[in-house]
C-alpha cells in the first residue's frame, strides 16, 4: 500500500545511456562439420519453401488462366473438343457429399474412441489393441481400404447402399460405400487430435468435477469436451482435408461416371446410393494420366481443389493456435476469427 503513490521508474534509460542488447551468437566459432550441417539444414528449409511456393504458383497460373465461372455450374459432358466437355459442377457436389457424410460418421466415432482411450482405457490390453488398430488404419494406403470397402459393400445384404443388378449381384460402388470408407480414413486424424487435446487438460480439472460428485461420463460430456472444442474442430478439419484429397477411394468406390447418377427415386438417398465423381477423380480422369480429355479443365479443377485444401489448412492453424476458453458466442467469434485469418474471402 505504501508504494501506491510512488512513481514507476521510467522504462527507457536516460539520454546518452547506451542500451546493451545481447548479440546473436556467431557460427564462425563452430567446427567445420557443424557449420556444413547448419548450412544444409538452412538449404533444405529454403528448398522446401521453394517447392511449396512453386506448386502454388504453378497451379495458380495454370488454374487461373483456365478457370471460368461457367465451369462451376456446368455438368461434365462427353465431347471430343475441350469446349464441349462441360464444367465440374457435379464433381464439386460429389466432393461435398462425400466429405459431409464421411465426417458425419467419423466425428462422433472418433471423439468417442479418443475419449475412451484417454479417460477409461480399461482393460489395458484392449486399450493397447485399439491404439494399434488406429495406428494401423492411419498407415494403410487408401487404395487398400478402397478394395476392402468394395469387398464389404458388394455383399448381398448391403445391396440397399448401392445398386443391385437384375441377377441380384450387388454393385458395391456408391457414395454411401465411399463415405463409410472415407470415415475410416479420417478416423485416425480425429482420434489423434482429440486425444492430444484431452492430454492437455490438467488433471485438476477432472478432479474438480469428481469433487463435485460428478461421474466420469458427466465430466467428459460437460467439462472436457467443451474445453477441447478447438482440438475437436481441428481434428474434424484435418479429416475433411484428408477426405477431400483422396483419389483412390473415389475412383474405386464411387465409380467412374463423371456425372452424378441417381439410383431409385428418393432424392438424397438416391444420390448417395448412386455414383458420380469428386474433384480428385475429375482431375485424374481429365488429366493426361487418365483419359486426357481436357487437361485445361483438370488444371482448373486442381486449382479449386488446392484452394479448398489450403483453406482447410488455414482453419486448422487458426483453431489450434487458439486456446481461449469458449463462451456462449463461441461459434460467432470463431467464424469472425476464421474470416479475419483469410482476407482473400470478402
Amino acid at each position, binding site marked *: 500500500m505504501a508504494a501506491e503513490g510512488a512513481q514507476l521508474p521510467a522504462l527507457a534509460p536516460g539520454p546518452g545511456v547506451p542500451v546493451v542488447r545481447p548479440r546473436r551468437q556467431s557460427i564462425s566459432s563452430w567446427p567445420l562439420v557443424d557449420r556444413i550441417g547448419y548450412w544444409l539444414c538452412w538449404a533444405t528449409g529454403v528448398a522446401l519453401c521453394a517447392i511449396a511456393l512453386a506448386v502454388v504458383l504453378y497451379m495458380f497460373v495454370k488454374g487461373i488462366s483456365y478457370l471460368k465461372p461457367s465451369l462451376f455450374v456446368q455438368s461434365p459432358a462427353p465431347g471430343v473438343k475441350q469446349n464441349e466437355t462441360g464444367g465440374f459442377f457435379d464433381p464439386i457436389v460429389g466432393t461435398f457429399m462425400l466429405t459431409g457424410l464421411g465426417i458425419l460418421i467419423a466425428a462422433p466415432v472418433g471423439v468417442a474412441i479418443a475419449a475412451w482411450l484417454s479417460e477409461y482405457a480399461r482393460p489395458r490390453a484392449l486399450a493397447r489393441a485399439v491404439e494399434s488398430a488406429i495406428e494401423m488404419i492411419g498407415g494403410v494406403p487408401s487404395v487398400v481400404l478402397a478394395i476392402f470397402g468394395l469387398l464389404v459393400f458388394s455383399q448381398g445384404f448391403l445391396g440397399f447402399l448401392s445398386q443391385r443388378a437384375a441377377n441380384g449381384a450387388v454393385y458395391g460402388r456408391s457414395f454411401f460405400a465411399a463415405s463409410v470408407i472415407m470415415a475410416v480414413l479420417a478416423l485416425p486424424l480425429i482420434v489423434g487430435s482429440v486425444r492430444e487435446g484431452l492430454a492437455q487438460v490438467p488433471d485438476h480439472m477432472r478432479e474438480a468435477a*469428481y*469433487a*463435485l*460428485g460428478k461421474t466420469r461420463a458427466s465430466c467428459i460430456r*460437460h467439462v472436457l469436451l*467443451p*474445453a477441447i472444442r478447438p482440438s475437436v474442430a481441428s481434428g474434424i478439419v484435418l479429416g475433411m482435408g484428408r477426405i477431400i484429397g483422396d483419389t483412390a477411394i473415389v475412383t474405386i468406390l464411387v465409380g467412374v461416371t463423371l456425372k452424378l447418377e441417381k439410383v431409385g427415386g428418393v432424392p438424397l438417398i438416391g444420390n448417395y446410393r448412386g455414383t458420380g465423381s469428386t474433384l480428385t477423380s475429375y482431375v485424374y480422369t481429365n488429366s493426361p494420366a487418365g483419359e486426357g480429355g481436357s487437361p485445361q479443365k483438370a488444371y482448373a479443377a486442381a486449382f479449386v481443389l488446392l484452394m479448398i485444401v489450403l483453406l482447410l489448412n488455414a482453419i486448422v492453424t487458426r483453431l489450434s493456435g487458439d486456446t481461449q*476458453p469458449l*463462451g456462449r458466442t463461441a461459434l460467432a467469434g470463431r467464424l469472425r476469427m476464421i474470416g479475419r485469418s483469410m482476407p482473400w474471402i470478402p
Partner: protein
Amino acid sequence: MPPPVRRIALDRDPYVAPPTDHDGGATTATLTPPGPAAAARTRQPAAEVRERMRVESVWLAYGDRWVVRDVSLPVRQGEVLALIGASGSGKTTLLRSLNRLTEVTAGAGRAGSITLDGEEIHELEVNQLRRRVSMVFQQPNPFPMSILDNVAYALAEHPGHGRRRRRRTPELEATAADALRRAGLYDEVADDLNRPALRLSGGQQQRLCIARALAANPEVLLLDEPCSALDPISTATIEELIVGLRESVAIVIVTHNLQQAQRVADHVAFMHLGELVEYGTSEQIFARPTKQRTRDYISGAFG
C-alpha cells in the same frame, strides 16, 4: 538427525482445551500480523458445534507405501479444523480420503473407518458422498464456461434441479446466485454472470470454486491449501470467508501457512511423516504445544 517419531495414541475423544481469549497471549501476538483477516477473526466459538465426520485409526497407502498411519480425528460443524505439517506428511492425502478422492489415484488403499454423520463413507454412493463432502483445490480450477454455468453445473443432477443443465429456471439462477453470495463473489460479478470464468482474477476464481463447492449445500467443505496460489489481499478475503462459513458447514483446511492456520482454525492437527503428532485447539497448539516435534515445527526448526 530428527528424533524418532513417536506415535501418539489418541483417545476416542481427544482432549480439547476450552478456548479462552487470553491463553498464550504473547505467542499469539507475535505470530498474528495485524490485517483484515485477523481483525475479522472472532475468537468466539460458533454457537453450535456438532460432529459431522469422524476419522478413526485410518491408514492410507499409495501402492505399498503407507502415507498416513493410524490417524484419528473429529470433524465438527461450527469450527475450522486445520491440518498442518511439512510436505509429505500426508495431510493432503488424509484430506482427499475424506471424500474418497484418493480413489482416483491408482493403487490407493485404506484401512480404518471414516464416518459421515455416523455412516461409513465407503458404504455411501461415491458421487452422493462427494456432493455432501465438497472440495476446493490448491490451484483455482474453474471450468472453462461462464460463471453461472460453473455454479449451475455443480447444481445439475442435484435433486430438485433436474438433469438438464441447459434449462435455466429462475429458481436455478437464484440458487446459483445464493451460492455466489455465500462465497462473497456475487457483488463483484453480478453485472455479468455469463462472462467466462477464466477471465476472473485468481482470487475471484478461487472464490468461484468455493461457490461451486457450496452450491450443492455440502455438509463438509475440504480446502486443500486454497490460498497458496493467491496474493495477500485475496488470501485475507478468503480467510474471512472461511471463518464466516464455519457456522453452516464443517471445514477442514490443509495449509502450509502457520499464520493462516492460526487465523482461521479453531482446532489444529499437526502431522509428521504420516502420523498425527498433536491435535488440539488452535490456541493450545500454537501457545502451549505439548510435543517437542510440534514445538520445533511451529518455531520453524524444521519443515
